[in-house]
């Protein structure tokens, strides 16, 4: 039953993170909802971490290509997401 206990640990982490997520995100004011959307969108590119492992674990051409597509996609999500959010946030100025 080692796999079930792995699942349980992951579940604890997941459930707590969901609580943290809802609490911190519900504090973001409507003023910043668009940057919030694009900022968290950039963060969802975290699967890049998995993609890097996928692309780099072997010399087998098939999985390497799949991995590379994953890395390109993930990088695009991350780089584009952060830059666009930054561009947007730069525009918010106080008088």
């Amino acid at each position, binding site marked *: 039953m080692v796999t079930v206990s792995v*699942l349980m640990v992951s579940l604890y982490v997941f459930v707590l993170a969901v609580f943290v997520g809802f609490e911190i995100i519900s504090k973001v004011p409507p003023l*910043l909802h668009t940057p919030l959307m694009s900022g968290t969108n950039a963060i969802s590119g975290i699967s890049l971490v998995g993609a890097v492992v996928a692309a780099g674990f072997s010399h087998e051409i098939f999985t390497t290509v799949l991995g590379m597509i994953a890395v390109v996609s993930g990088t695009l999500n991350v780089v584009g997401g952060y830059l666009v959010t930054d561009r*947007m946030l730069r525009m918010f100025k106080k008088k």
Partner: protein
Amino acid sequence: MPGYVVDAIYLVTSVLFIVGIKMLSTPASAMRGNFISAIAMALAVGTTLATGEIVEYTSIAIAIVIGTVIGIVASYIVKMTQMPQMVAVYNGVGGLASCLVGVVEFYRNYGHLYPYLTAMIALTVLVGAVTFTGSMVAFLKLEEKLISGQPTLFPMQHWLNLALIAGIAGLGTALAVNPAYAPMLWILVGVSFLLGVLVVIPIGGADMPVVIALLNSYSGIAASLAGFVLSNNLLIITGALVGASGIFLSDTMCRGMNRSIWNVLFGGFGYVPMAAGGGPAAAAGQAGAVKSYSIEDAVNVLSSARSVIIVPGYGMAAGQAQHQVRDLAEVLDGMGVTVRYGIHPVAGRMPGHMNVLLAEANVPYDQLLEMDQINDDFKRTDVCIVVGANDVVNPAANTDPSSPIYGMPVLNAEQAKTVMVLKRSMNPGFAGIENALFLHDNTMMLFGDARATLTKLANALKRQ
């Protein structure tokens, strides 16, 4: 690098992501928050590259360079009005990445797959694939390219979707029990792609922002599931944060529209055809009781005003009139008029839409007031200038129990001494309903494209 060091760095990274998002809650700290979050991402990827699990760096380097170049270029050419589309595309590729991570993990563990792992892989592939194709359809619907914005409805649609879901569940179970047969995984990928398309096409283009927020949530959940596959807490935590954010934002939009998420997803609504021709005069004529005013009339009223509240709406975005709004506000300010903005939470087509556009036009954010902050002040205000807003100033939401938007909180624009409405015709807005505000005695309709009308107003005021 030993595993516990990687775990420790990942923990720090998770905390940095949390702190980064927390800092998005004030405009003063938001830019630093986004930066911290980007640092966390770099740290996470860098650490992963250094774990020692990786034997092949060239392909990774090439892929990262390609992704980075496209990302940089895309982020600088996109217009602020295209944000929803942009987010849709990024969501989609993020989902694709998670989906492929699932597929590769299947091959990587081939031979020693056990049911829990295979089940998690199947889930990752499913959610990632649906996110990918769903987001692409949403993107095309918003651009009105290839796919029309109109809801694509056909008989037995929901039954077909149900059948696909049942098929996916069957495939997933079969794989979990006997993971030897790899083509089954590819069938799963294909069916999931199809499902992503089918769940989004029946939804109207105007409802896409809600769908995009929801797909944002899915892309987070896909990342989280990839974390379950890899037993990687960083992916689990970060994915969960994104998942919570997407659900929060789609919920905010649904509340603002006075509809349930189920109505958005399965209602087949949400397509408002664009006002095709007709022209202001004609449209105004049709409406009968409506009184159309000239720029001079408006200038006369504004010259004696002491306080003005500007209420922007989707029309400001559609007409790209944010800079002209700012110009008019500055002219008024120069005349000693107090100018503030009243921002409805769902004005425009995505959460915070108006704020971003006005920020782009250099309007200081402390002049942008939320509904709760400003709603009591309309009655003490001389002029309310409604720039391309419609539903968010519809008094029926407060007074007419038979209206579909009854109960939705709206801005009390009608309480101002004079209300000026800048729009092109008497056409309805997103909700597709009449707005009695336009017929009020204290309302002056200024028909025409918002940008043109605003420019004329500002020039006429300057000449005085």
